């Protein structure tokens, strides 16, 4: 039953992905006017424009271009970047580890911080500790990620210059790579932690009022055992869904974090593509982000059903 559900979710993910590819292709082609004029500028000679068109295959009919693009994608070819003539896929693969480390680092940091804090805020909700956690997480969700990033930059760039504030470090040198990861992860992770802590608190408050918690207490179980075994377990499925949603929501914001810390990454690449009007990279970048979101949503659903099989009927 669970396997059938997962298969169904997988097929629908593929359909969504295909629609996204089509949508992005036509949005970029049809709505953005002529990419060649945009790239070469208004003063380009007609000859230059024509040779560029031929090189990019833009003088073919739209459907030929579209099927050509689809065929290319299925063979791992998303075109070449306009500026550097590098295969788009290659430039994404090069920066992917940086973005992956940042995204995973932030979500793990967020989870590690938010679960204990959220639970604590729910248990001690009328004490000073509980209300300060609630207040702090409320402030946290109201800070846009780039404001947080610039604040950290200001703090660690001039006042406590112990951590690198620019670049992504060297991939082959793990300690260096990790050191460069700390501030970007903090800037995303603190906000993620605030968002998740609010949700954990709300869910945990509901669970605290459930009858089975009273039953567990009446049986004479210790308080920590009740909270961990019965309380936390009940909210775990929801936390995994929330973490998935949060991870997907965070991906777009990575553009800003990567720009602030001048880190190489998918977001930075996409941003540069927009500025340089590099349409193939832009198109590829948007697709990569969508694939990540669709993948994360799929995984979150699968994890959720594994943890709590009742949810597949929703």
């Amino acid at each position, binding site marked *: 039953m669970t396997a059938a559900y997962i298969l169904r979710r997988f097929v629908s993910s593929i359909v969504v992905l295909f629609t996204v590819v089509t949508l992005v292709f036509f*949005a970029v082609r049809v709505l953005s006017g002529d990419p060649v004029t945009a790239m070469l500028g208004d003063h380009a000679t007609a000859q230059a424009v024509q040779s560029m068109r031929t090189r990019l295959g833009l003088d073919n009919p739209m459907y030929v271009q579209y099927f050509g693009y689809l065929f290319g994608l299925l063979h791992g070819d998303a075109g070449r970047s306009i500026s550097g003539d590098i295969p788009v896929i290659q430039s994404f693969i090069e920066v992917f580890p940086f973005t992956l480390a940042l995204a995973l680092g932030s979500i793990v940091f967020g989870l590690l911080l938010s679960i204990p804090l959220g639970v604590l805020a729910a248990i001690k909700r009328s004490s000073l500790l509980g209300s300060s956690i609630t207040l702090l997480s409320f402030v946290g969700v109201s800070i846009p990620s780039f404001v947080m990033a610039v604040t950290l930059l200001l703090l660690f760039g001039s006042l406590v210059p112990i951590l690198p504030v620019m670049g992504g470090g060297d991939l082959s040198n793990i300690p260096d790579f990790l050191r460069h990861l700390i501030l970007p992860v903090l800037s995303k992770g603190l906000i993620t932690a605030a968002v998740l802590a609010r949700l954990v608190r709300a869910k945990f408050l509901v669970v605290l009022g459930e009858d089975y918690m009273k039953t567990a207490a009446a049986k004479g179980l210790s308080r920590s055992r009740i909270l961990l075994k019965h309380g936390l377990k009940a909210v775990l499925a929801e936390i995994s869904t929330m973490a998935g949603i949060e991870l997907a929501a965070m991906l777009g914001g990575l553009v800003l974090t990567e720009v602030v810390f001048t880190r190489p990454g998918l977001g930075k690449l996409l941003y540069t593509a927009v500025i340089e009007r590099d349409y193939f990279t832009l198109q590829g970048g948007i697709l990569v982000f969508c694939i990540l979101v669709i993948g994360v949503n799929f995984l979150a659903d699968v994890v959720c059903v594994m943890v709590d099989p009742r949810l597949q009927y929703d």
Partner: protein
Amino acid sequence: MRRTFKIYRLMRSNKRLRAFCRNKLAIFGTSVLLLIVTMAIFAPLIAPHSPYEHNYALKIHSPSNSYIMGNDQYGRGVFSRIVYGTRSVLQIGLLTAVVSAVVGTSIGLVAGYAGGTVDRLITAGVDVMMSFPPMILGIMVIAIMGVGLYKVIWAIAISLTPGFIRLTRVAVVSIKHTTFIEASKAMGASHIRIIGKHVLPNISDTILVMFALWASKAIIAAASLGFLGLGVQPPDPEWGYMLRQGMELLYCAPHMVVFPGLMIVLLILALNALSDALRDVLDPKTLT
């Protein structure tokens, strides 16, 4: 019977109003928002200098008596630019929230109420749109359409509306099968009447809460796009872009970053407080 019901409704709404006025979050949110709206309306009276007036003698000058938040790299007053910046920020927040709410509520209502194929089609469309991270969708729309205040509003509205549709649909579906809706159906009420008289009033609370939340999301998105240089274009003052310019001079002129940053956070805090307060007041079930 009808009159008693009306009086009861009035009393109930007054009770809610009283609860809203006593709510600390509501007081905070409303006062900050009023302050910022006042700044936007009376900007020429409040701002001591023109937001465009260059004063090269005072380039990146720290806060002083005549420029209380200091000067930027062209010697323009940061405070004056912040005051004028409220205009674009509020326009974007309000207009985007209105577009999202109107379009989102209509489509969500149709999907949730009609059900069947219509619902499946709309839900599939929303799923596709929501597989774009909102920021990426915004950047894509800007890359295609170009920059400018109204294009930013479109970009953000397009990226935020799918979420509104989804939540409205859920709200509609959850009340569609209640007994009172079925009763009015059995009494022969038309679809328009059921939607207008029963469905809409029952989801209006949810929509109001979401409206405040979406305004805050829109403002974050606008400031983020501005920060990337893809939002409101210079020389018009915009908080996100001011922060970006300050970042380039971060260590010699921190005031260029600190004040716009604080204003963004303050406004988002106010809107989130309002949305939380509305939720607490309108829906006592979540009062935990």
